[in-house]
């Protein structure tokens, strides 16, 4: 083997080494990024923390996001916490709590639900789907009905 061959061989080896490293990077970079912990840690939501009791005065309601769906948390005048799917059962508009009515109201066609989620007036044909609400200390947790 002459010098030229040795030179070529060394060059080729270096090239192979370098390209091997690049290939390994191309394979392991996506894997590493995949492995990183995510901001949104979980896929299916079965329970979320909505907030603390102090943020929800009695006789009020507010909308929260439950996974991909809107929910409404009610703090009734007599102190109970209730949560429902905020999608009106008539034509799927988003409902709101009206203090002046003491009821859940849908602005689209004047549909009304009482604080048990039952449809009491207007076009809605069915009650609102309910969530379970748990209080841990002063924290409010909403989860899928078991």
């Amino acid at each position, binding site marked *: 083997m002459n010098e030229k061959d040795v030179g070529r061989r060394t060059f080729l080896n270096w090239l192979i080494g370098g390209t091997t490293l690049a290939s390994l990077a191309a394979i392991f970079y996506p*894997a590493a990024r995949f492995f990183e912990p995510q901001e949104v840690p979980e896929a*299916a939501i079965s329970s979320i923390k909505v907030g603390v009791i102090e943020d929800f005065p009695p006789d009020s309601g507010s909308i929260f996001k439950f996974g991909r769906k809107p929910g409404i948390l009610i703090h009734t005048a007599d102190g109970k916490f209730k949560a429902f799917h905020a999608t009106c059962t008539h034509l799927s508009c988003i409902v709101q709590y009206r203090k002046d009515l003491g009821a859940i109201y849908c602005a689209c066609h004047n549909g009304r639900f009482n604080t048990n989620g039952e449809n009491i007036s207007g076009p809605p044909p069915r009650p609102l789907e309910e969530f379970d609400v748990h209080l841990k200390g002063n924290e409010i947790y909403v989860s899928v009905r078991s």
Partner: protein
Amino acid sequence: MDNGSSGQRLYSFLNERFKLDSLVEFFSHKTVPRHSHSYLYYTGGVSLFLFMVQVFSGILLLMYYKGSADSAFESVRFIMSEVPFGWLIRDVHSWSANLMIFFAFIHMFAVFFTKSYRFPRELTWLSGMVLLFLSMVFGFSGYLLPWNELAFFATKVGTDIAGALPGIGEPILKLLRGSEDVTGATLSRFFGIHVAIMPGIFVLFLTMHLTLVQRLGMSEPLHWKNLPEDKKKHTPFFPNFLLRDFSLWLIILSIVAALSVFFPWELGLKADPFVSAPAGIKPEWYFMFVFQTLKYIPAHVLIMEGELFGILMFGLGALLWMFVPFFDREGRGERLSRAFTYAGVVIVAYIIVMTVLGYTME
């Protein structure tokens, strides 16, 4: 010791503790026959590589996949849409699964037509057949895991067929499904089968298969029987054949990556047991020829139900195929027994035609 390069010193260290010398001696003399059909030797390696890709991508998916009926679909959706490169890992896993089974079939037929199953390689053939069967179980169990509509109904149809067997059919169906119908219990079961039971059994048979291949070496082609020794060309296994193997594996990996980007896999709709099956439920392509054949069998053959007859026929066929090394006496004598070759051609043609019909006939 400071004699020799760092590589040699490392080897020395390991050799004293693993007793590597005899192994290295064995491998350094191992050769692979070189002839016009040597390229077929690579098909086994490609299947092995794709299995390794499956293990790697599968373990990554396990980081986020949830195997229960109310979160499986959502977890796959999460992987596809939120996790960086999640779409890539999932699509690689799906494509590589199909390619692995495809190449396993190619490998099997390559071995069949070259009669490499003949003495002393009968057990290699048997373990290989078991591996093919296990791959298809991997495929069937894995297909259900995204818990989408298509997978749900494909599983229902597939397990229904298993239930058609007399006597043992019902218990087998219940065992597979974990209950009467396809439910969350089925999903849990299939998940356990796919990530724990199957890998364990597969690795066992794979070890047996690879050990046999290494110990017995690559089978020589039939026409070498009458060739003088000096006319037989060989190539060293290490490093030549192995490097060529790696080179091919890189090409295969590129193909898998390209398929993942240009032909991504759909997720579809979440499984809903109360919805009626969408029209035209099909199994995966590697089951299609069985499925299509069952469609053509009349409702009753002699005294038994057509479906049962079909299953029994396939079962019998699989057994015969599996024990072909013991039937093909001529092959043992290193002679080409045309009957088996013709039978093989007919079977390959049948599988291809049935698979094509399964997709074109509505």
